[in-house]
Structures are given as C-alpha cells and as structure tokens.
C-alpha cells in the first residue's frame, strides 16, 4: 500500500550517512550557496541568490526552486529549533509542516536523519494511533465488504 503515513506525528522521512563531520553538514544546511547546491536534488535547481537565511528561532529561511520546464516556486520556512550542530527544525509557512534534521556523529562521518511532523502528536485514543495507513486498510476492507 502506498500510504505509509502515521497520524500520530513524527515520521522518518529520510536517513543517510555522509562522509563529513557534523559541523560541515550543519554548515551545508545554513549556508545559502550550499543550500542552493543540494536543495533541488535532481528534480529542480535553486539559484544561490534566491536563498535567504535568517538563522535564529523565528527567523525565515527561503529559496526559489526552478523546475526543468522553467516553473518556479518560492518556499519559505521558519526556524523553530537551532541546536548547532545537532538539530535544525523548521516549519513550512503554508502547510505548517515541521521538518527536523538531526545530525549524529557516526564513524568518520555523520548520520543525517530527517523527520517530519504534519500533525499535532496528542492523540485521544489508541485507535487513532493506528494511523492513516491502517485507516486506509480498514477503509479498503469496509469497501470490499459493502
């Protein structure tokens, strides 16, 4: 099933070991030129002069992505937690999606873990903790039987 979402809150989005120390990885996350170099991945480009970083809790971090077909999109985030060089958390200003990047020294490099929290974690029932994926499974079962 495609949906692996969890209504309960934090979800592991990505994990990668990088052959660079936490300080270097941290710098890459807060330096406009570095952000421009990697943020678009292989799906978009980011012009360095489009990146602004106001590194303080409540400060904004913004950039513009350009798709291969020329479409551009301005992304804006607000820093929620800054714990150099361990944890950086920022919230997307439209969806309020909270992204937390955690850096942990590991061997000769750094483990980078990205979590996202889409929804408040307080859940009233164990049932609700079952999550969106199981909701969809239950829904599928219900539709099949009805």
């Amino acid at each position: 099933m495609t949906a692996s979402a969890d209504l309960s809150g934090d979800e592991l989005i990505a994990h990668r070991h990088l052959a660079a120390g936490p300080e270097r990885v941290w710098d890459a996350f807060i330096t406009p030129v570095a952000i421009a170099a990697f943020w678009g991945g292989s799906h978009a480009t980011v012009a360095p002069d489009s990146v602004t970083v106001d590194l303080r809790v409540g400060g904004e971090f913004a950039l513009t992505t350009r798709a291969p077909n020329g479409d551009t999109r301005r992304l804006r985030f607000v820093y929620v937690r800054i714990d150099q060089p361990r944890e950086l958390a920022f919230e997307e200003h439209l969806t309020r999606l909270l992204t937390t990047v955690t850096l942990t020294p590991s061997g000769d490099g750094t483990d980078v873990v990205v979590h996202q929290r889409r929804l408040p974690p307080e859940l009233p029932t164990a049932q609700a903790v079952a999550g969106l994926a199981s909701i969809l499974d239950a829904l599928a079962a219900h539709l099949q039987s009805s």
Partner: protein
Amino acid sequence: LRKRLFAYSVRRVPGTVLTQPADLDASFAALGDPVRRALVTRLARGEATVGQLAEPFALTPQAISHHLGVLRRAGLVEQRREGTSRPCRLRPEALAGLGNWIDEQRRMWDDRLVALEKHLDGNGDAR
C-alpha cells in the same frame, strides 16, 4: 479497489517539485484536531450518522456537526441525505492524496540528501 483508492494522485509538475493542491492545506488543518482524527478513524470502519459519531465523545451533536463540517469542507468526508438521517462516509481519494503527498516528501528528501552528499564530496575535506 487499491486502484480506486490511489487513482487520485497529488498533482505535480512532471519531474519537478511538488505542486500542492489547494485542498492539501485544508486537509492537514482539518486533521490537526484530535476529535476530527478520531472521527476519521471511526468512519474508516464504515459510515455513520452524526448521532453514532457523537456516542464515544462527551460532545453535543452540534459540536460533532461542526467538526464534520470542517472535514467535509476539506474534502475528507461526505454526507448524504437518507430520509431524516444524514450518514457520513470518508472520501478515500482524499486520504490517498495525503498519503501520496507524504510519499512524495520522502522521495524529495532522499533525492536532496544524495545531492548534499555530492556537494560535500565536491567540497573536499574543508573541516
């Protein structure tokens, strides 16, 4: 059925960053409330009337109706008229859209961390 559940996909510009449907924000906002999440969980077991939905809660039917209105406007729930009752049901395509969006986030971050690795490799051992 699975095809039906996931036939809906979040619209995106091909090969590019995700284009968020306008209703995605509304969906996340609607699910940001514990009562509404519990209503969604209950409706996943099958359709129910407002009275049936209100049973486990110390809330009035009016309060439940308010929450259902939020879920309905977000496209997550639909209500039909059946005589005097108005049973509610989930809209699976809307929930599938949320799941697809989260999967898209995961793909984008994987891609981004690969690019970060390349960037750090290219910069040598500056530190």
